[in-house]
């Protein structure tokens, strides 16, 4: 944009010199100071596998003109079966071996934090924890945002520090720790009156016990060994998002593309497309799809013939090469000035055939879906 004209600069400078024309008060950018949100999610997988119920509650409270307190609570109740390892089948085809269907697990996590609004800047600090019998996690996150070009550009940087400890139901005193450090930087940029885009880069460093204590691998020559992953993981992710309004159909389109790679040999890519439209009566609907694909980790095999020399082995279906196709949809209704209700659903078909390279098998294929209901209040 061209610099302010000399004429305008002169007039503005003279105006600023007039008494009482400019306020000394800080500019508060917080739009919805008091708010509360509660949601319930039902997640289930095909083939008598896991199902999860999640309840979440969030509240925000302004404490001064510039500070907003935020609190979160989340509770997961898991039941159903989970794959433990893959066993070679009689005809040479491996198959998954699941836990008994009676596994029942409950997790709770809380976090509190604050947001500070300072003119064109915004700072967020959060502290969270989750303390269970077999899992402890304490984390801190910080984020800074800066608005520039009359809020056409937003810069954001942040970091999160996780300290976790994991044991298992079977060996509760066998407590192993791990740390995770996340860093990200991103830019949101308005392109014109009806479109914008975002680019962000994230780096994650994990160190410690990164294996899954509930998983095993089948080794032909030896039998069953525990899941053993490297003690260090470095992951990079690049995400791009584009959102544009199309007046001809009074709808918005959003495309999100995300790529990641790490030092475990696991590379992934995701592409999500969404169509969003406002309907009369304060309804908002959206529908879209997501395509995902990943390669397998270096230490992954469906079934091992011999125990690898470096002691690293995993048959976890999440470390395999696979892809997925998902449908997602959402309906939101604004109720009066202060309340809104949202129903969302996503259904994802995991498919070995959509993989990026490496190894896996379609015996791991399943379908997951979730239904989420959220109630929001803002004052």
């Amino acid at each position, binding site marked *: 944009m061209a610099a302010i004209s000399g004429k305008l600069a002169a007039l503005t400078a003279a105006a600023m010199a007039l008494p009482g024309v400019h306020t000394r008060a800080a500019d508060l950018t917080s739009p919805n100071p008091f708010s509360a949100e509660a949601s319930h999610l039902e997640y289930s997988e095909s083939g008598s596998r896991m199902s999860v119920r999640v309840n979440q509650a969030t509240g925000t409270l302004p404490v001064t003109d510039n500070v907003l307190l935020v609190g979160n609570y989340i509770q997961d109740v898991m039941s159903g079966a989970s794959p433990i390892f893959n066993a070679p089948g009689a005809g040479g085809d491996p198959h998954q071996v699941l836990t008994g269907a009676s596994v029942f697990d409950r997790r709770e996590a809380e976090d509190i934090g604050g947001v500070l609004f300072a003119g064109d800047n915004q700072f967020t600090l959060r502290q969270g924890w989750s303390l269970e019998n077999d899992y402890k996690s304490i984390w801190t996150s910080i984020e800074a945002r800066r608005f520039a070009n009359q809020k056409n550009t937003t810069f954001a940087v942040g970091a999160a520090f996780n300290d976790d400890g994991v044991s298992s139901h079977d060996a509760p005193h066998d407590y192993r720790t791990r740390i995770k450090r996340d860093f990200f930087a991103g830019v949101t940029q308005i392109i014109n009156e009806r479109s914008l885009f975002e680019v962000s880069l994230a780096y994650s460093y994990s160190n410690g016990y990164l294996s899954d204590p509930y998983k095993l691998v089948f080794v032909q020559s030896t039998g069953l060994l525990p899941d053993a992953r490297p003690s260090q993981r470095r992951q990079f992710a690049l995400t791009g998002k584009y959102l544009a309004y199309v007046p001809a159909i009074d709808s*918005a389109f959003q495309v999100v593309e995300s790529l990641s790679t790490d030092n475990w040999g696991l590379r992934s890519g995701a592409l999500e497309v969404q169509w969003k439209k406002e309907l009369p009566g304060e309804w908002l609907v959206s529908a879209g799809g997501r395509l995902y694909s990943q390669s397998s980790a270096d230490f992954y095999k469906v079934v091992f013939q011999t125990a690898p020399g470096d002691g690293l082995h995993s048959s976890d279906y999440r470390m395999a090469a696979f892809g997925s196709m998902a449908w997602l949809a959402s309906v939101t209704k604004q109720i009066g000035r202060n309340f809104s209700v949202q129903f969302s659903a*996503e259904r994802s078909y995991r498919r070995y055939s959509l993989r990026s390279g490496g190894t896996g098998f379609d015996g791991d294929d399943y379908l997951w879906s979730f239904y989420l209901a959220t109630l929001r209040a803002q004052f």
Partner: protein
Amino acid sequence: MRRRIGVATAVLALALLSACATVQPWERGTLAKPVMSVDDPPQEKTQKLRTYKAKEGGAAATGVGGGGCGCN
């Protein structure tokens, strides 16, 4: 292939950055529409990210930011 996509993203981002106009506050009507909110509502975003993190091996990301979430 991944590197090519990564480079293409960076080039596209730079191209878009240079093509940007500065939209004045009174021109923000369209951008202020509910369908144009760039982030999902917080709890929705949290649930999506937790699900992807639990079921996939890649780094789940839906946009800028995130930070700690205490996910297993």
